[in-house]
C-alpha cells in the first residue's frame, strides 16, 4: 500500500505544521500522526515524513529512533503499558503485569500470536491517585487509561478491549 496521508490526516498535518515556526519543530506530532495513520514507523514512513516536512530523512531517523514510543516494528493492535513506578508498584502494578502475562499468554515485550495485544512495563503515567493502572494505546492513535485495577477489573477491561479491537486493522497491514 502506498504511504500517503488520508484526507483527514492530511488536514491534521496541515494544521500541525501551521502551529510551529518551522517544519523541523513539527517532527514529533507529525510522527505520532504518521504512526496512527500507518500503524508503525517503517523506513518508508520515515522517508514519507521527511518528504512531507521537507527535512532530510536522517533527521526523521534520528528522532524516531531516539523516542521509544514510536514503533519501528509493527506491534499489536493494542499496546498495553503497565505502570510500575512507585505508587503503582506499591498498589500492585507488578501483580497486574503477572496477571496480564498469564491471561494473555505472553511475557513483557511480546505480542500475542493473534496480533491483538503487546505488553510493556513503563514508568510513571501520572495517574498515581488511581494506582495501579495501565494505558492502552491503539493502533489508530487513540489512548485510553484504565485505573484502579485488580484481576477482576483486568478481565473486564480485556473483554471490553477485545470487542473494540475487532474493528481495528493489524498495524502490520496498515501500510
Amino acid at each position, binding site marked *: 500500500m502506498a504511504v500517503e496521508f488520508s484526507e483527514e490526516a492530511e488536514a491534521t498535518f496541515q494544521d500541525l505544521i501551521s502551529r510551529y515556526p518551522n517544519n523541523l519543530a513539527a517532527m514529533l506530532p507529525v510522527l505520532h500522526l504518521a504512526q496512527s495513520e500507518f500503524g508503525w514507523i517503517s523506513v518508508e514512513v520515515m522517508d514519507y515524513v521527511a518528504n512531507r516536512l521537507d527535512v532530510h530523512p536522517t*533527521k526523521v*531517523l534520528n528522532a524516531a*529512533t531516539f523516542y521509544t514510543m514510536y514503533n519501528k516494528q509493527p506491534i499489536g493492535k493494542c499496546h498495553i503499558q503497565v505502570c510500575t513506578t512507585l505508587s503503582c508498584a506499591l498498589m500492585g502494578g507488578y501483580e497486574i503485569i503477572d496477571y496480564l502475562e498469564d491471561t494473555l499468554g505472553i511475557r513483557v515485550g511480546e505480542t500475542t500470536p493473534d496480533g491483538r495485544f503487546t505488553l510493556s512495563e513503563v514508568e510513571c503515567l501520572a495517574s498515581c491517585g488511581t494506582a495501579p493502572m495501565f494505558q492502552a494505546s491503539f493502533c489508530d492513535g487513540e489512548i485510553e487509561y484504565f485505573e484502579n485495577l485488580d484481576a477482576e477489573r483486568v478481565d473486564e477491561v480485556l473483554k471490553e478491549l477485545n470487542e473494540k479491537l475487532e474493528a481495528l486493522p493489524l498495524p502490520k497491514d496498515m501500510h
Partner: protein
Amino acid sequence: MPKVNINGTEIEVEKGTTILKAAAQAGFEVPHFCYHPALSIPANCRMCLVEVEGARSLEPACYSEVTDGMVVETKSERVIKAQKSVLEFILLNHPVDCPICDQAGECKLQDYYMAYDAQESRLRAEKNQKVKVFPIGPEVLYDGERCILCTRCIRFCEEITGTNELTIVQRGDSAEIRTFPGKELDNPYSVCTADICPVGALTSRDFRFKCRVWLLQSTDSVCTGCSNGCNIHLEHFRNEIQRYRPRYNPQVNDYWMCDAGRLSYKEVHTDRLLRPMSNGAALNWHGVTETASAKLARALDDDAGSFGFVVSPQASCEDLFLAKRFIEEVLGTDQLYLGGKPDGFEDDFLIKADKNPNRQGVKAVFGGLNDFGDVDKLIDDIESGAIKTLYMMETHLPADAETRQRFVDALDKLDLFVLQAQHCAELANQAHLALPACSHAETEGTFVNFDGLAQPFEQAFAPHGDSLPHWQIFMRLARAMGQPLTYTFVHQIRDEMFQASDADENGEPAEAQAE
C-alpha cells in the same frame, strides 16, 4: 577589545573570541573533542570545561565568548576534576582496543587520557558491545564501540558537503552513528570524516591496518589529482606513500580534500617506468644519455622541422622551465603539443574538471597556451609525416580511449619516439627511448593551481629505481648534446624561473593550525 585573564596571563583579544581561542592565543591548551574550527559548536563533549571567576558552574570554553575583565582558570582543581570525570564517562564503554586501532598514535582520546586522566578504570561491569566493523560507506568504516558521539562527522556532512548522510540513532549507551537505511556515506569527501574523527570510530578503508601512524614520515606536498592543488601531508614509510592527509590552507582547501585526490597517491606506485630503456632493453643512464643524444642530434640534423615535443601539465614548473630551455636552446623546435589528462568530474567545492595539477604553470612558463597544438593536430601531424621525431613528457593525453588508440597506432610512423615519463602505460614499449622520470613525491618543485597560486611541494623520499626528476634528465641530455644547462639545485631554477615569468610567488601555504 576585551581584556581577559587566563591562568594569570593578561591578554587582549577580538570581541567575540571564544575562551578556547583566547586560551590558545595565551598559550594554553584546552582539550576538546567535539569542537572543530570549521564546524558549528555543539559543546556536547564537555571536555573543554573551564572555570570562569564568578560563574556558578564550569563553562564550555569552545562556546563561551570572552567578556572584558573575565578571569579564566583552565587548570584549576575543579577543572581537572571535571576533565577526569568527562574522560571517565567517555571511557566507560570505550573498548580501549588501541593495539588494533588505526587511530592509535593520533587519537585525541589516547592523548587526553595520558595528559588529563591517567587513572585506572573503576568500572567492573562488562562494557557495551556494538558492531565493530560497520561499512558505513565505500571509503569509510565505522566502529560504534570506539565512537564518543562528538558529532563532528554529522556536522561535516551537514555543513561542509551538505549531503546530510549521517545521524545518531537510538539513545543513551546504545546510540550510534548511522546513515538512513539503504543509504551510504558516499560523497566525494567522505574520508574527511575519518580525518576529523577524534577517535578511531571512523577510519579510512584504504589506510586500514596499513601502517602504524607513528612510523609515518610526513612531507608537505600538493595533491596532483586535479588543478585545485589541495595542500597535503604526504605520509610515507620506507619510500612508499601510505596516505595523503589534507594540510590546512584557507586559500585553497581549508581542512579538506576529496577522496579521489586522496587515493591518487596510488599512481605513484603503479605501472612505474623505473629503468632507462632503449628499444625495450634496459640501459643505465650513462648509456641511454649517449644513445639519446646521438639519436636526437641525428634527427635534428636530418630534418629539424619535423621535430615535435609534447609538454605535460603534470610536470612541475621547474621541470617545465628546463623543458622550455631544452626545447628552445638545444632542440630549436617550435612544434609543441600539450599532453595531460582529459577533463573529468567537477563540483563547486574543491574538485576541478582539469585533472592536471600544473596547467597554469605551463601557461606561466611558456607564456600562454596558444603555441600548443592539441591531440588531434598531434595525430594528424604524425600521420601526415609532418612530425617524424616525437619527444613526449609523461604518458597522458587529453583524449578519449578511441583517440588515444589512434595516437598509439600512429606512433609506428615515427622515425624516433622518445618518452620521458613516470609511467609505462602502453607507450613505453613503443618508445625507441624511454627515460624514467620520478613523481612529485620524489623531487621538489612548484605547481600553479587553477587560481594562479604557486605552491611548492617538498621531496619525500629518494627517486624509485633509476628514475630522475625531469629537469635532471633535460640537463643530462643537454650536456651530452654540447649545450649544458647548468643548475645544481631546484631553487636555482626556481629563482631564475620567477624572474623570467610573470607569475609571482605568493604561494607559500599558511602554517597549519591546530585542528
